[in-house]
């Protein structure tokens, strides 16, 4: 049973205090998207053996959703971070690479979608 530290309240919560939310950083496709895009968004999951990014909610706590970077095979936790980010943060990437030097992010090739949002969320959690 996992223990994850909620980045919003600093509590090391055990799994029974958390609600799982599946793969993190899915890009939503709504009306106007192709069937292929929509199906990929709704159904296709990476399900990797190894480094993975997940959504968790501190349900029996502050109620905030957060992200966890975790190795699905060893259950090593590289870090937890704000849910208000389209991709794992540079700190998380560094923490992963410190333990898994061969691991490379798979999103850097994609064009970065700038959301106007990052700011307000960051200030909330400051």
């Amino acid at each position, binding site marked *: 049973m996992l223990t994850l530290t909620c980045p*919003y*309240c*600093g*509590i*090391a*919560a*055990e799994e*029974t*205090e958390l609600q799982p939310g599946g793969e993190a950083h899915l890009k939503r496709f709504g009306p106007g998207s192709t069937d292929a895009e929509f199906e990929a968004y709704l159904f296709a999951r990476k399900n990797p053996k190894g480094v993975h990014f997940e959504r968790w909610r501190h*349900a*029996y*706590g*502050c*109620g*905030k959703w957060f992200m966890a970077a975790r190795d699905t095979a060893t259950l090593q936790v590289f870090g937890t971070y704000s849910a208000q980010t389209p991709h794992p943060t540079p700190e998380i990437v560094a923490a992963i690479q410190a333990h898994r030097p061969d691991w490379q992010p798979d999103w850097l090739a994609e064009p970065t979608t700038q959301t106007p949002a990052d700011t307000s969320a960051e*200030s*909330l*959690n*400051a």
Partner: protein
Amino acid sequence: MAEALARISQVQDWGMIQIRADLSRAGDAIAEAAGVALPGQGRITTDGSRTLGWMSPDELLLVLPRAETAEALAALQDALATEHALVLDVSDMRAVFRIQGAKALDVLMKLCPADLAAMPQDGLRRTRAAQVACGIWRETDGYVLIGFRSVTDYLRGILTGAAVPGTQLDPR
């Protein structure tokens, strides 16, 4: 019959106000209107009969004598009129219990996965008690536990069950 591990009693005369706001912007205004200093992450602050608890990065809970609730509610709504904020009277949706006595921690250790022994003196921990959500902080001679109103009987049941005489957690 030996004594129970702790005295379990329900508190009926407290009011509670939930405050949602950007605390970095509105913290000072809240503290002034509430009459209690702004608590840090995971902490409570207390001033006289009022306690202000940190519930999440954008949520506070003001605990105060029930009779003062309406006035405090108005004061907070006033103070936050120009903010994107939410101030709600949540007095009626809560159940509050006191767990008091030398073995109060033992009672909570049977129900909560949180490391309450390590909680700071002025800490507030939201966790679960057996199967329901709760919040816990310290008070003279024990702890306060708040939960939801609908499960008052359940909370009383698990707390008194965990406090049964002779069941202290010391090694035997």
